């Protein structure tokens, strides 16, 4: 089956710096990847997604990179702001209706 992991459970960055959050997955057949942001007391919020036919996708201040060769994806947040403080989950879709979540990285932004 699929397993999803992250390299760092916590990350602290200075306000204005760029943040990089990493994620690894195990199943090379996985074809859809999603990043969620969860603020304290709230449900996970969709940030950005990417399909396996792409290796990079950009949103507003966020970029997701997918390296299928090593089964790794990352979320880059540009000019990190205090409002970016949250737990970030990568999620991997293994079939149409099954999504496996990674353990999460807690991002703290230092003012």
């Amino acid at each position, binding site marked *: 089956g699929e397993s999803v992991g992250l390299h760092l459970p916590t990350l602290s960055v200075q306000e204005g710096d760029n943040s990089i959050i990493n994620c690894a997955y195990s199943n090379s057949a996985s074809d859809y990847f999603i990043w969620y942001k969860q603020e304290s007391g709230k*449900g996970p919020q969709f940030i950005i997604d990417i399909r396996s036919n792409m290796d990079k996708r950009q949103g507003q201040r966020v970029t997701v990179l997918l390296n299928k060769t090593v089964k790794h994806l990352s979320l880059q947040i540009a000019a990190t702001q205090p409002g970016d403080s949250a737990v970030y*989950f990568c*999620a991997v879709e293994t079939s149409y209706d099954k999504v496996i979540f990674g353990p999460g990285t807690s991002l703290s932004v230092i003012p």
Partner: protein
Amino acid sequence: SAVISQKPSRDICQRGTSLTIQCQVDSQVTMMFWYRQQPGQSLTLIATANQGSEATYESGFVIDKFPISRPNLTFSTLTVSNMSPEDSSIYLCSVVWLLGLAGEGGTDTQYFGPGTRLTVL
């Protein structure tokens, strides 16, 4: 944008009792799911709520403990039965919007409700 609501938002319950959590959406969805998030942990899928038929449970979750209903396209309930302190968690519903029209992702992207924080004493 489309709204996913859950009731109650939080509750404190006594051991041995049951709690029913409601999930209501304001746009059509194709899929509805229930997740559990234990304190400080990631999300674990409990089951897929199927309209008009029995839910599909993941390994480790059973219908007697977590009965689920989905009477129509926009509403589902999860009951946590015969609760123990180990059931203290956040329970989240998620949906896949019909044709992906109500979100920024794809046609199979899941979107989450605000969660129900359950504490069992």
